[in-house]
Protein backbone atom coordinates (compact mmCIF):
# COMPACT_ATOMS: atom_id res chain seq x y z
CA UNK A 1 0.00 0.00 0.00
CA UNK A 2 2.67 2.50 1.07
CA UNK A 3 4.69 1.39 -1.92
CA UNK A 4 2.62 3.53 -4.27
CA UNK A 5 3.63 6.63 -2.34
CA UNK A 6 7.21 5.99 -3.41
CA UNK A 7 6.31 6.82 -7.01
CA UNK A 8 7.13 10.50 -7.64
CA UNK A 9 4.12 10.92 -10.00
CA UNK A 10 1.82 9.60 -7.25
CA UNK A 11 3.35 11.96 -4.68
CA UNK A 12 2.78 14.89 -7.04
CA UNK A 13 -0.76 13.75 -7.83
CA UNK A 14 -1.65 13.38 -4.14
CA UNK A 15 -0.19 16.75 -3.17
CA UNK A 16 -1.82 18.60 -6.09
CA UNK A 17 -5.05 16.59 -5.69
CA UNK A 18 -5.46 17.34 -1.99
CA UNK A 19 -4.68 21.04 -2.48
CA UNK A 20 -7.12 21.36 -5.41
CA UNK A 21 -9.70 19.28 -3.52
CA UNK A 22 -9.58 21.68 -0.56
CA UNK A 23 -9.84 24.69 -2.87
CA UNK A 24 -12.71 23.40 -5.01
CA UNK A 25 -14.73 22.26 -1.99
CA UNK A 26 -14.22 25.52 -0.08
CA UNK A 27 -15.35 27.59 -3.09
CA UNK A 28 -17.97 24.96 -3.97
CA UNK A 29 -19.83 25.72 -0.73
CA UNK A 30 -20.43 29.22 -2.08
CA UNK A 31 -21.21 27.92 -5.58
CA UNK A 32 -23.99 25.79 -4.06
CA UNK A 33 -25.55 28.51 -1.89
CA UNK A 34 -25.31 31.07 -4.72
CA UNK A 35 -26.81 28.57 -7.19
CA UNK A 36 -23.89 28.98 -9.61
CA UNK A 37 -23.44 25.33 -10.64
CA UNK A 38 -23.33 26.17 -14.35
CA UNK A 39 -20.54 28.71 -13.81
CA UNK A 40 -17.98 26.03 -12.88
CA UNK A 41 -18.94 23.87 -15.85
CA UNK A 42 -18.86 26.85 -18.21
CA UNK A 43 -15.45 28.08 -17.05
CA UNK A 44 -13.96 24.57 -17.26
CA UNK A 45 -15.11 24.17 -20.85
CA UNK A 46 -14.09 27.74 -21.74
CA UNK A 47 -10.56 27.01 -20.51
CA UNK A 48 -10.08 24.75 -23.56
CA UNK A 49 -9.43 27.90 -25.61
CA UNK A 50 -6.72 28.92 -23.10
CA UNK A 51 -5.12 25.47 -23.34
CA UNK A 52 -5.18 25.69 -27.15
CA UNK A 53 -3.61 29.19 -27.14
CA UNK A 54 -0.86 27.93 -24.83
CA UNK A 55 -0.11 24.88 -26.97
CA UNK A 56 -0.19 26.89 -30.22
CA UNK A 57 2.11 29.58 -28.83
CA UNK A 58 4.48 27.01 -27.34
CA UNK A 59 3.91 28.07 -23.71
CA UNK A 60 2.90 25.94 -20.72
CA UNK A 61 -0.89 25.59 -21.21
CA UNK A 62 -1.86 25.75 -17.48
CA UNK A 63 -0.91 29.40 -16.75
CA UNK A 64 -2.38 30.54 -20.09
CA UNK A 65 -5.61 28.64 -19.34
CA UNK A 66 -5.78 30.27 -15.89
CA UNK A 67 -5.41 33.76 -17.38
CA UNK A 68 -7.97 33.00 -20.12
CA UNK A 69 -10.47 31.59 -17.59
CA UNK A 70 -10.09 34.69 -15.37
CA UNK A 71 -10.78 36.95 -18.37
CA UNK A 72 -13.89 34.92 -19.24
CA UNK A 73 -15.07 35.04 -15.59
CA UNK A 74 -14.64 38.84 -15.52
CA UNK A 75 -16.51 39.15 -18.83
CA UNK A 76 -19.38 37.06 -17.39
CA UNK A 77 -19.41 39.28 -14.28
CA UNK A 78 -19.55 42.42 -16.43
CA UNK A 79 -22.38 41.12 -18.61
CA UNK A 80 -24.34 40.02 -15.51
CA UNK A 81 -23.99 43.47 -13.97
CA UNK A 82 -24.59 45.53 -17.10
CA UNK A 83 -27.10 43.72 -19.31
CA UNK A 84 -30.59 42.31 -18.97
CA UNK A 85 -29.37 38.80 -19.85
CA UNK A 86 -29.53 36.20 -17.12
CA UNK A 87 -26.42 34.46 -15.84
CA UNK A 88 -27.11 31.07 -17.49
CA UNK A 89 -27.44 32.65 -20.95
CA UNK A 90 -24.21 34.64 -20.56
CA UNK A 91 -22.26 31.63 -19.30
CA UNK A 92 -23.71 29.53 -22.14
CA UNK A 93 -22.46 32.02 -24.74
CA UNK A 94 -18.90 32.19 -23.34
CA UNK A 95 -18.80 28.44 -22.72
CA UNK A 96 -19.69 27.48 -26.30
CA UNK A 97 -17.78 30.32 -27.98
CA UNK A 98 -14.59 29.43 -26.09
CA UNK A 99 -15.02 25.72 -26.84
CA UNK A 100 -15.44 26.60 -30.52
CA UNK A 101 -12.33 28.81 -30.40
CA UNK A 102 -10.42 25.98 -28.70
CA UNK A 103 -11.47 23.43 -31.35
CA UNK A 104 -10.52 25.79 -34.23
CA UNK A 105 -7.12 26.61 -32.66
CA UNK A 106 -6.44 22.92 -31.96
CA UNK A 107 -7.01 22.15 -35.64
CA UNK A 108 -3.97 24.32 -36.43
CA UNK A 109 -1.71 22.18 -34.25
CA UNK A 110 -0.43 19.23 -36.26
CA UNK A 111 -0.27 15.67 -34.89
CA UNK A 112 -1.62 13.95 -31.77
CA UNK A 113 -1.92 16.19 -28.71
CA UNK A 114 -1.50 14.16 -25.49
CA UNK A 115 -1.65 17.41 -23.49
CA UNK A 116 -5.10 18.09 -24.91
CA UNK A 117 -6.39 14.65 -23.94
CA UNK A 118 -5.03 15.09 -20.40
CA UNK A 119 -6.90 18.41 -20.09
CA UNK A 120 -10.11 16.91 -21.39
CA UNK A 121 -10.17 13.87 -19.11
CA UNK A 122 -7.54 14.60 -16.45
CA UNK A 123 -4.37 12.62 -16.00
CA UNK A 124 -2.35 12.20 -12.82
CA UNK A 125 0.68 11.14 -14.84
CA UNK A 126 0.76 14.52 -16.54
CA UNK A 127 1.19 16.52 -13.32
CA UNK A 128 4.68 17.96 -13.32
CA UNK A 129 6.62 19.49 -10.45
CA UNK A 130 6.01 22.95 -11.95
CA UNK A 131 2.25 22.17 -11.97
CA UNK A 132 2.46 21.31 -8.26
CA UNK A 133 4.27 24.60 -7.60
CA UNK A 134 1.69 26.60 -9.63
CA UNK A 135 -1.21 24.83 -7.87
CA UNK A 136 0.34 25.37 -4.42
CA UNK A 137 1.06 29.07 -4.87
CA UNK A 138 -2.28 30.01 -6.43
CA UNK A 139 -4.23 27.87 -3.94
CA UNK A 140 -2.38 29.43 -1.00
CA UNK A 141 -3.28 32.92 -2.24
CA UNK A 142 -6.95 32.04 -2.76
CA UNK A 143 -7.33 30.16 0.54
CA UNK A 144 -5.68 33.02 2.46
CA UNK A 145 -8.18 35.49 0.97
CA UNK A 146 -11.07 33.10 1.58
CA UNK A 147 -10.20 32.38 5.22
CA UNK A 148 -9.68 36.09 6.01
CA UNK A 149 -12.86 37.26 4.26
CA UNK A 150 -15.07 34.17 4.72
CA UNK A 151 -17.61 36.08 6.80
CA UNK A 152 -17.80 38.84 4.19
CA UNK A 153 -18.25 36.36 1.35
CA UNK A 154 -20.98 34.56 3.30
CA UNK A 155 -22.73 37.88 3.98
CA UNK A 156 -22.58 38.87 0.28
CA UNK A 157 -23.79 35.42 -0.81
CA UNK A 158 -26.81 35.62 1.51
CA UNK A 159 -27.73 39.29 1.29
CA UNK A 160 -25.56 41.50 -0.92
CA UNK A 161 -27.42 44.76 -0.27
CA UNK A 162 -27.25 44.47 3.51
CA UNK A 163 -23.57 43.50 3.30
CA UNK A 164 -22.80 46.59 1.21
CA UNK A 165 -24.65 48.90 3.62
CA UNK A 166 -22.88 47.25 6.57
CA UNK A 167 -19.60 48.40 5.04
CA UNK A 168 -18.52 45.20 3.26
CA UNK A 169 -16.86 45.92 -0.11
CA UNK A 170 -19.29 43.58 -1.82
CA UNK A 171 -18.45 44.36 -5.47
CA UNK A 172 -14.73 43.86 -4.86
CA UNK A 173 -15.22 40.53 -3.04
CA UNK A 174 -17.70 39.37 -5.70
CA UNK A 175 -15.10 40.00 -8.43
CA UNK A 176 -12.41 38.28 -6.35
CA UNK A 177 -14.77 35.31 -5.89
CA UNK A 178 -15.24 35.01 -9.67
CA UNK A 179 -11.45 35.19 -10.20
CA UNK A 180 -10.82 32.62 -7.45
CA UNK A 181 -13.43 30.28 -8.86
CA UNK A 182 -12.08 30.51 -12.41
CA UNK A 183 -8.54 29.86 -11.16
CA UNK A 184 -9.58 26.91 -8.97
CA UNK A 185 -11.56 25.29 -11.78
CA UNK A 186 -8.62 25.47 -14.21
CA UNK A 187 -6.23 24.11 -11.55
CA UNK A 188 -8.65 21.20 -11.07
CA UNK A 189 -8.80 20.55 -14.82
CA UNK A 190 -5.32 18.96 -14.79
CA UNK A 191 -6.45 16.26 -12.38
CA UNK A 192 -10.14 15.85 -13.13
CA UNK A 193 -10.42 17.03 -16.70
CA UNK A 194 -12.51 19.76 -18.29
CA UNK A 195 -15.55 17.52 -18.43
CA UNK A 196 -15.58 16.44 -14.78
CA UNK A 197 -13.95 19.20 -12.73
CA UNK A 198 -17.16 21.01 -11.81
CA UNK A 199 -18.35 17.85 -10.04
CA UNK A 200 -15.84 18.52 -7.26
CA UNK A 201 -17.34 21.97 -6.74
CA UNK A 202 -20.77 20.46 -6.19
CA UNK A 203 -20.67 16.91 -4.81
CA UNK A 204 -18.63 17.49 -1.59
CA UNK A 205 -20.75 20.56 -0.80
CA UNK A 206 -23.95 18.59 -1.43
CA UNK A 207 -22.71 15.74 0.81
CA UNK A 208 -21.82 18.20 3.53
CA UNK A 209 -25.21 19.91 3.25
CA UNK A 210 -26.89 16.62 4.15
CA UNK A 211 -24.69 16.13 7.21
CA UNK A 212 -24.39 19.52 8.87
CA UNK A 213 -26.67 22.01 10.58
CA UNK A 214 -24.43 25.08 10.60
CA UNK A 215 -22.68 27.07 7.87
CA UNK A 216 -19.33 26.53 9.57
CA UNK A 217 -19.89 22.76 9.58
CA UNK A 218 -21.05 22.93 5.96
CA UNK A 219 -17.75 24.58 4.96
CA UNK A 220 -15.35 22.24 6.78
CA UNK A 221 -17.19 18.93 6.16
CA UNK A 222 -17.30 19.75 2.41
CA UNK A 223 -13.50 20.13 2.47
CA UNK A 224 -13.10 16.89 4.43
CA UNK A 225 -15.38 15.01 2.06
CA UNK A 226 -13.50 16.35 -0.96
CA UNK A 227 -10.06 15.40 0.40
CA UNK A 228 -11.33 11.92 1.31
CA UNK A 229 -12.72 11.45 -2.21
CA UNK A 230 -9.47 12.63 -3.81
CA UNK A 231 -7.27 10.29 -1.75
CA UNK A 232 -9.55 7.24 -2.12
CA UNK A 233 -10.18 8.00 -5.80
CA UNK A 234 -6.49 8.34 -6.64
CA UNK A 235 -5.57 5.13 -4.81
CA UNK A 236 -8.45 3.26 -6.43
CA UNK A 237 -7.56 4.55 -9.89
CA UNK A 238 -3.98 3.35 -9.35
CA UNK A 239 -5.03 -0.16 -8.32
CA UNK A 240 -7.76 -0.49 -10.98
CA UNK A 241 -5.66 1.21 -13.65
CA UNK A 242 -8.68 3.45 -14.28
CA UNK A 243 -8.77 7.16 -15.24
CA UNK A 244 -8.04 9.23 -12.12
CA UNK A 245 -10.55 12.06 -12.65
CA UNK A 246 -13.51 9.80 -13.30
CA UNK A 247 -12.60 7.49 -10.37
CA UNK A 248 -12.38 10.46 -7.96
CA UNK A 249 -15.81 11.68 -9.07
CA UNK A 250 -17.31 8.18 -8.73
CA UNK A 251 -15.91 7.90 -5.20
CA UNK A 252 -17.30 11.36 -4.30
CA UNK A 253 -20.68 10.33 -5.74
CA UNK A 254 -20.64 7.06 -3.77
CA UNK A 255 -19.90 9.03 -0.57
CA UNK A 256 -22.81 11.34 -1.39
CA UNK A 257 -25.28 8.44 -1.87
CA UNK A 258 -24.10 6.62 1.27
CA UNK A 259 -24.56 9.82 3.31
CA UNK A 260 -27.97 10.47 1.71
CA UNK A 261 -29.20 6.95 2.57
CA UNK A 262 -27.72 6.91 6.10
CA UNK A 263 -29.10 10.36 7.00
CA UNK A 264 -32.51 9.37 5.61
CA UNK A 265 -32.59 6.14 7.64
CA UNK A 266 -31.37 7.85 10.82
CA UNK A 267 -34.19 10.42 10.59
CA UNK A 268 -36.89 7.72 10.68
Amino acid at each position, binding site marked *: MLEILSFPFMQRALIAGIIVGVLLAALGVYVV*VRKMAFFGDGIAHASLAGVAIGLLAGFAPLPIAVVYAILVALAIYWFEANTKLNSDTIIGIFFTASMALGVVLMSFIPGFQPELISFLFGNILSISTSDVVTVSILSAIIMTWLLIYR*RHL*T*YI*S*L*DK*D*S*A*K*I*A*GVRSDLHDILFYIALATAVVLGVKILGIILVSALLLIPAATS*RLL*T*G*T*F*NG*FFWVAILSSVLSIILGLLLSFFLDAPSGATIILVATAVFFIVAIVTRISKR
Partner: protein
Amino acid sequence: MQSQHHKHEPEIIVKHLSVGYDGKVILSDLTFDIPKKKITAIIGPNGSGKSTLMKAILGIIPFQKGSVTMSGHPVEKSYGKIGYVPQRFDIDRSFPITVKELLSLAERGSINKDRMNEVLGEVGLNPVTVGRMLIGSLSGGQMQRVLIARAIMTDPDILFLDEPATGIDVAGEQSIFELLEHLQSDHDTTIVMISHEVNLVEKHVDNVICLNRGLVCAGPPAKALSDKVMKQLYGQHYDRHDHDH
Protein backbone atom coordinates in the same frame (compact mmCIF):
# COMPACT_ATOMS: atom_id res chain seq x y z
CA MET B 1 -44.70 58.70 19.30
CA GLN B 2 -44.79 62.33 20.20
CA SER B 3 -48.15 64.03 19.93
CA GLN B 4 -46.92 67.30 18.45
CA HIS B 5 -44.55 67.68 15.57
CA HIS B 6 -41.76 70.16 15.98
CA LYS B 7 -39.14 71.12 13.47
CA HIS B 8 -36.30 68.66 14.03
CA GLU B 9 -32.76 68.52 12.75
CA PRO B 10 -32.80 66.48 9.54
CA GLU B 11 -30.79 63.24 9.40
CA ILE B 12 -31.42 62.65 5.70
CA ILE B 13 -31.98 65.36 3.10
CA VAL B 14 -33.42 64.35 -0.28
CA LYS B 15 -33.40 67.02 -3.00
CA HIS B 16 -35.03 66.75 -6.44
CA LEU B 17 -34.53 63.00 -6.54
CA SER B 18 -35.53 61.25 -9.78
CA VAL B 19 -35.13 57.52 -10.31
CA GLY B 20 -35.87 55.47 -13.41
CA TYR B 21 -34.56 52.70 -15.58
CA ASP B 22 -35.02 51.52 -19.16
CA GLY B 23 -36.48 54.92 -20.03
CA LYS B 24 -39.24 54.53 -17.41
CA VAL B 25 -39.64 57.11 -14.66
CA ILE B 26 -40.23 55.45 -11.27
CA LEU B 27 -39.84 58.48 -9.01
CA SER B 28 -39.86 62.08 -10.13
CA ASP B 29 -38.38 65.17 -8.43
CA LEU B 30 -38.79 64.22 -4.76
CA THR B 31 -37.68 66.70 -2.12
CA PHE B 32 -38.10 66.04 1.62
CA ASP B 33 -36.21 65.64 4.92
CA ILE B 34 -36.15 62.74 7.34
CA PRO B 35 -35.79 63.96 10.95
CA LYS B 36 -33.06 62.73 13.26
CA LYS B 37 -33.88 60.31 16.11
CA LYS B 38 -37.51 59.86 15.00
CA ILE B 39 -39.48 57.10 13.30
CA THR B 40 -40.41 57.87 9.70
CA ALA B 41 -42.69 55.64 7.63
CA ILE B 42 -42.81 55.64 3.83
CA ILE B 43 -46.34 54.70 2.75
CA GLY B 44 -48.14 54.38 -0.55
CA PRO B 45 -49.98 51.88 -2.74
CA ASN B 46 -48.31 48.89 -4.44
CA GLY B 47 -46.03 50.04 -7.24
CA SER B 48 -45.77 53.58 -5.87
CA GLY B 49 -41.96 53.34 -5.67
CA LYS B 50 -41.50 52.90 -1.90
CA SER B 51 -38.81 50.23 -2.12
CA THR B 52 -37.17 52.05 -5.05
CA LEU B 53 -37.00 55.21 -2.93
CA MET B 54 -35.45 53.39 0.03
CA LYS B 55 -32.91 51.67 -2.21
CA ALA B 56 -32.04 54.96 -3.94
CA ILE B 57 -31.55 56.68 -0.57
CA LEU B 58 -29.31 53.80 0.52
CA GLY B 59 -27.25 53.89 -2.69
CA ILE B 60 -28.26 50.36 -3.68
CA ILE B 61 -29.72 51.60 -6.96
CA PRO B 62 -28.50 54.66 -8.86
CA PHE B 63 -30.60 57.77 -9.36
CA GLN B 64 -30.73 59.97 -12.46
CA LYS B 65 -31.08 63.38 -10.85
CA GLY B 66 -30.96 65.03 -7.46
CA SER B 67 -29.00 64.39 -4.28
CA VAL B 68 -29.24 62.46 -1.03
CA THR B 69 -27.18 63.33 2.02
CA MET B 70 -27.03 61.55 5.34
CA SER B 71 -25.73 63.54 8.30
CA GLY B 72 -24.47 66.06 5.74
CA HIS B 73 -22.42 63.58 3.69
CA PRO B 74 -23.00 61.26 0.73
CA VAL B 75 -24.69 58.04 1.87
CA GLU B 76 -21.66 55.84 1.13
CA LYS B 77 -19.78 57.64 3.93
CA SER B 78 -22.36 56.31 6.40
CA TYR B 79 -21.96 52.65 5.36
CA GLY B 80 -21.14 50.69 8.49
CA LYS B 81 -23.25 53.06 10.62
CA ILE B 82 -26.53 52.08 8.96
CA GLY B 83 -28.63 49.02 9.77
CA TYR B 84 -30.74 47.62 6.93
CA VAL B 85 -33.58 45.11 7.21
CA PRO B 86 -34.59 43.89 3.74
CA GLN B 87 -37.96 42.30 3.04
CA ARG B 88 -37.69 38.88 4.62
CA PHE B 89 -38.91 37.30 1.38
CA ASP B 90 -35.68 38.54 -0.25
CA ILE B 91 -33.62 36.23 1.98
CA ASP B 92 -33.06 32.68 0.72
CA ARG B 93 -34.39 30.59 3.62
CA SER B 94 -32.69 27.45 2.28
CA PHE B 95 -29.29 29.05 3.04
CA PRO B 96 -27.77 26.67 5.64
CA ILE B 97 -26.96 29.18 8.37
CA THR B 98 -27.98 29.37 12.02
CA VAL B 99 -29.36 32.49 13.66
CA LYS B 100 -26.14 33.15 15.60
CA GLU B 101 -24.03 32.64 12.48
CA LEU B 102 -26.27 35.12 10.68
CA LEU B 103 -25.77 37.68 13.47
CA SER B 104 -22.01 37.14 13.37
CA LEU B 105 -21.95 38.30 9.71
CA ALA B 106 -22.78 41.82 10.86
CA GLU B 107 -19.83 41.96 13.27
CA ARG B 108 -16.60 43.74 12.46
CA GLY B 109 -13.63 41.98 14.02
CA SER B 110 -13.98 39.17 16.53
CA ILE B 111 -17.34 37.59 17.32
CA ASN B 112 -18.99 38.92 20.48
CA LYS B 113 -21.31 36.22 21.81
CA ASP B 114 -22.60 38.42 24.64
CA ARG B 115 -23.69 41.05 22.10
CA MET B 116 -25.55 38.37 20.10
CA ASN B 117 -27.42 37.22 23.22
CA GLU B 118 -28.17 40.84 24.11
CA VAL B 119 -29.68 41.76 20.71
CA LEU B 120 -31.68 38.53 20.50
CA GLY B 121 -33.13 39.32 23.92
CA GLU B 122 -33.81 42.88 22.81
CA VAL B 123 -35.93 41.74 19.85
CA GLY B 124 -37.81 39.30 22.08
CA LEU B 125 -36.14 36.01 21.07
CA ASN B 126 -34.60 33.38 23.32
CA PRO B 127 -30.85 33.40 22.59
CA VAL B 128 -30.38 29.78 23.68
CA THR B 129 -33.19 28.11 21.74
CA VAL B 130 -33.54 30.41 18.72
CA GLY B 131 -29.81 31.17 18.45
CA ARG B 132 -28.91 27.70 17.24
CA MET B 133 -31.86 27.27 14.85
CA LEU B 134 -31.35 27.30 11.08
CA ILE B 135 -33.03 30.35 9.51
CA GLY B 136 -35.14 28.02 7.36
CA SER B 137 -36.89 26.65 10.45
CA LEU B 138 -37.98 30.05 11.83
CA SER B 139 -41.54 31.38 11.61
CA GLY B 140 -42.15 34.58 9.61
CA GLY B 141 -42.31 36.71 12.75
CA GLN B 142 -39.16 35.12 14.21
CA MET B 143 -37.28 35.65 10.94
CA GLN B 144 -38.30 39.31 10.90
CA ARG B 145 -37.01 39.77 14.45
CA VAL B 146 -33.76 37.98 13.58
CA LEU B 147 -33.21 40.36 10.65
CA ILE B 148 -33.84 43.32 12.95
CA ALA B 149 -31.40 41.80 15.48
CA ARG B 150 -28.76 41.50 12.74
CA ALA B 151 -29.30 45.13 11.72
CA ILE B 152 -28.87 46.43 15.29
CA MET B 153 -25.82 44.25 16.11
CA THR B 154 -23.50 47.18 15.37
CA ASP B 155 -25.71 49.71 17.19
CA PRO B 156 -26.39 51.74 14.02
CA ASP B 157 -27.21 55.46 13.98
CA ILE B 158 -29.93 54.91 11.36
CA LEU B 159 -32.10 51.84 10.82
CA PHE B 160 -33.90 51.19 7.52
CA LEU B 161 -36.62 48.54 7.32
CA ASP B 162 -38.40 47.44 4.14
CA GLU B 163 -41.92 46.30 5.10
CA PRO B 164 -40.97 44.76 8.46
CA ALA B 165 -44.54 43.87 9.41
CA THR B 166 -45.81 42.48 6.12
CA GLY B 167 -46.98 38.88 6.04
CA ILE B 168 -47.15 38.29 9.76
CA ASP B 169 -50.27 38.05 11.91
CA VAL B 170 -52.04 41.08 13.41
CA ALA B 171 -50.51 40.66 16.88
CA GLY B 172 -47.10 40.22 15.25
CA GLU B 173 -47.49 43.44 13.23
CA GLN B 174 -48.38 45.37 16.37
CA SER B 175 -45.44 43.94 18.32
CA ILE B 176 -42.97 44.79 15.52
CA PHE B 177 -44.11 48.44 15.67
CA GLU B 178 -43.79 48.41 19.47
CA LEU B 179 -40.32 46.89 19.17
CA LEU B 180 -39.25 49.67 16.79
CA GLU B 181 -40.59 52.29 19.20
CA HIS B 182 -38.51 50.75 21.99
CA LEU B 183 -35.39 50.62 19.82
CA GLN B 184 -35.84 54.25 18.87
CA SER B 185 -36.37 55.48 22.41
CA ASP B 186 -33.69 53.27 24.03
CA HIS B 187 -30.93 53.94 21.50
CA ASP B 188 -31.92 57.32 19.99
CA THR B 189 -31.83 55.65 16.58
CA THR B 190 -33.29 57.30 13.47
CA ILE B 191 -35.71 54.76 11.98
CA VAL B 192 -36.98 54.77 8.40
CA MET B 193 -39.47 52.09 7.45
CA ILE B 194 -41.74 51.15 4.57
CA SER B 195 -45.19 50.10 5.70
CA HIS B 196 -48.61 49.11 4.39
CA GLU B 197 -50.19 49.18 7.86
CA VAL B 198 -51.63 52.72 7.79
CA ASN B 199 -53.49 52.41 11.09
CA LEU B 200 -50.30 51.26 12.88
CA VAL B 201 -48.31 54.02 11.19
CA GLU B 202 -50.77 56.59 12.54
CA LYS B 203 -50.32 55.25 16.08
CA HIS B 204 -46.61 54.55 16.22
CA VAL B 205 -44.57 56.80 13.96
CA ASP B 206 -43.51 60.44 14.17
CA ASN B 207 -43.29 61.30 10.50
CA VAL B 208 -44.67 59.98 7.20
CA ILE B 209 -43.61 60.26 3.57
CA CYS B 210 -46.58 59.49 1.28
CA LEU B 211 -45.64 58.30 -2.15
CA ASN B 212 -47.47 57.62 -5.36
CA ARG B 213 -44.71 57.93 -7.97
CA GLY B 214 -44.32 61.50 -6.77
CA LEU B 215 -44.46 62.93 -3.29
CA VAL B 216 -48.06 63.24 -2.05
CA CYS B 217 -47.44 64.32 1.54
CA ALA B 218 -44.76 64.59 4.21
CA GLY B 219 -44.99 65.41 7.89
CA PRO B 220 -46.47 64.11 11.14
CA PRO B 221 -49.23 61.52 10.46
CA ALA B 222 -51.97 63.45 12.28
CA LYS B 223 -51.43 66.36 9.92
CA ALA B 224 -50.31 64.62 6.74
CA LEU B 225 -52.71 61.68 6.51
CA SER B 226 -55.92 63.56 5.77
CA ASP B 227 -58.87 61.76 4.13
CA LYS B 228 -58.06 63.62 0.92
CA VAL B 229 -54.47 62.38 0.93
CA MET B 230 -55.55 58.82 1.71
CA LYS B 231 -57.97 58.85 -1.23
CA GLN B 232 -55.20 60.25 -3.42
CA LEU B 233 -52.99 57.38 -2.35
CA TYR B 234 -55.40 54.46 -2.23
CA GLY B 235 -58.34 55.56 -4.45
CA GLN B 236 -61.75 57.17 -3.98
CA HIS B 237 -63.22 54.11 -2.23
CA TYR B 238 -60.62 54.14 0.52
CA ASP B 239 -62.16 54.00 3.99
CA ARG B 240 -59.61 54.14 6.80
CA HIS B 241 -61.97 52.26 9.16
CA ASP B 242 -61.80 49.25 6.83
CA HIS B 243 -58.11 49.15 7.61
CA ASP B 244 -58.50 49.04 11.39
CA HIS B 245 -57.70 45.64 12.80
